């Protein structure tokens, strides 16, 4: 089978000049790269798309759905719901045995050299299925030792398995922590199953919170990197997540990922059925900004399915269904994978250096200016996606400190279909309505005009060039145009976060 590599060779690095510019605190598992991390930590996260914002442009992950059982019930989860067009945590199309999972990993690794990470994230809880989870890890470790293992858990069973996690060299653990106060918790968790007993109400939330904190402390004391996921539920835990942030930070969590609630009646979740809304992009960003002190905040999470495959913005799981994997002849080429990863390392260094060069002179020009822009990309850190083909846009904030990744907006359709081009364009505009410009590899004349009318500039001139460097270069020109009166800064509207399915 021919390995497919995202073409990153097609263009030479874009030029730049000048000296190094300002920095600023990085976010997202260190967007700025290794600068603010110790060498040991950098080594652990540099190729992990879920722990490093920068890595997520280059490296792929996959989840193997070997863990169907769960020991708690969350109001945002309905385990019975699964539609092939639906993409969110807790949902999976096929369950796998550990043996099939290990074969699937090899098949994907052979096809996608960017694959560096395999995680077990459900569809239930990894640690409510300890035999299946650790058997899978063992098989993967035997056949593909260069792949990093990680798991995701609600934390209830975590203290019982910290030693096992360490024994299996699992370097990255994600705990979903939505509260530290049982009063908040009882509005998120109707029940838990603990010590052969079903607990409800505040008692349940209290046990869960205590077990989560205990597990987190045990992991960090062993030097295992912990990411904390929190689901932002407006009116339930939105303000409280600042306290959660403090609590997990003080216990040594490496990264905090605050995600918007996904809630639609058709999902059949308690929140979906009772009309609990998710946050707007602005509310989410405001909370993330508030929590971003001296702790890394993750903003590039795609809230992917328990069987997702590929780069974070894509899902190629349909190419690797059980039937297809069973027929594949797998050739695992460790050398080719290594060569690809070495190439990416060089490419990333070039991109970082280019961005730093471009920063020269920006600080004086920008003052307190703050502009959001959207980028169409299929990965590799370049502006390389056609406007009309983009399934999502990455959003960057431009300030005197440079370009910072602050989020992404999905623009695909929901599974009922039937949208015409006009409606699709409206969806895109409402998704990136808070952005002054959208950077694309190419765009048609009509959508370009419509965007213009909505006050969004479509920029093609940086096609296939490095994202961050290009944005800073454009920003400098934009500031000059503002000064000369050729451009006018407009008060931007709200960007909407898409709630429906991600159809890759």
């Amino acid at each position, binding site marked *: 089978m021919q390995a497919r590599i995202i073409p990153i060779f097609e263009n030479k690095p874009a030029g730049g000049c000048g000296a190094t510019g300002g920095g600023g605190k990085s976010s997202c598992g260190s967007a700025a790269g290794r600068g603010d991390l110790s060498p040991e930590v950098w080594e652990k996260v540099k190729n992990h798309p879920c722990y490093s914002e920068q890595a997520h442009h280059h490296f792929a992950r996959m989840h193997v759905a070997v863990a169907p*059982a*769960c020991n708690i019930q969350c109001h945002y989860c309905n*385990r019975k719901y699964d539609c092939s067009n639906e993409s969110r945590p807790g949902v999976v199309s096929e369950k796998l045995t550990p043996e099939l999972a290990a074969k699937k990993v090899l098949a994907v690794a052979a096809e996608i050299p960017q694959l560096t990470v395999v995680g077990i994230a459900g569809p*239930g809880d990894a640690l409510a299925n300890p035999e299946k989870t650790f058997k899978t890890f063992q098989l993967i470790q035997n056949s593909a030792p260069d792949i990093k293992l990680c798991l995701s858990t609600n934390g209830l069973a975590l203290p019982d398995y910290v030693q096992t996690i360490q024994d299996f060299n699992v370097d990255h653990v994600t705990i979903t922590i939505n509260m530290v106060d049982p009063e908040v918790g009882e509005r998120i968790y109707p029940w838990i*199953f603990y010590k052969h*007993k079903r607990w409800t109400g505040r008692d349940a939330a209290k046990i869960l919170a205590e077990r989560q904190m205990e597990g987190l402390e045990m992991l960090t004391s062993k030097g295992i990197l912990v990411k904390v996921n929190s689901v932002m539920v407006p009116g339930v835990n939105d303000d409280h997540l600042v306290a959660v942030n403090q609590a997990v930070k003080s216990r040594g969590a490496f990264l905090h990922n605050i995600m918007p609630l996904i809630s639609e009646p058709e999902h059949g979740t308690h929140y979906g059925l009772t009309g609990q809304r998710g946050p707007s992009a602005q509310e989410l960003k405001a909370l993330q900004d508030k929590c971003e002190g001296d702790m890394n905040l993750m903003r590039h999470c795609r809230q992917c399915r328990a069987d997702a495959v590929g780069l974070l913005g894509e899902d190629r799981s349909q190419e690797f269904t059980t039937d297809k994997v069973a027929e594949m002849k797998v050739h695992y080429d460790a050398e080719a994978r290594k060569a690809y990863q070495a190439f990416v390392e060089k490419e990333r260094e070039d991109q970082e250096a280019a961005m730093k060069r471009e920063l020269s002179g920006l600080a004086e020009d920008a003052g307190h200016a703050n502009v959001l822009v959207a980028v169409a990309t299929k990965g590799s850190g370049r502006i390389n996606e056609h406007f009309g083909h983009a399934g999502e846009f990455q959003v960057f904030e431009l300030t005197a400190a440079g370009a910072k990744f602050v989020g992404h907006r999905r623009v695909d359709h929901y599974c009922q279909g039937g949208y015409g081009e006009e409606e699709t364009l409206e969806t895109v505009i409402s998704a990136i309505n808070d952005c002054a410009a959208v950077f694309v590899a190419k765009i048609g004349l009509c959508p370009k005009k419509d965007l213009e009318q909505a006050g969004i500039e479509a920029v093609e001139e940086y096609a296939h060039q490095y994202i961050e460097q290009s944005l800073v270069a454009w920003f400098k020109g934009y500031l000059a145009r503002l000064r000369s009166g050729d451009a006018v800064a407009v008060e931007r509207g709200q960007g909407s976060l898409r709630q429906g399915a991600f159809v890759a």
Partner: protein
Amino acid sequence: MAMTIDESQCTACAMCESECPTDSILEKGGVFSIDAASCNECEGLEDGPQCVNSCPVDDCIVRA
């Protein structure tokens, strides 16, 4: 006297399998059922049937 699994509701997560004190949960080709001969509805246990308590889906496991 036995519990039974509503096949149309079951997500086949197997959570009940490890909780059943009488090993009465059976699985065949991914479909779960309860052995009526050995299930005693967790007689004597304070909380009642363990399969019901551990099952993530309401009304999936009921009295036969």
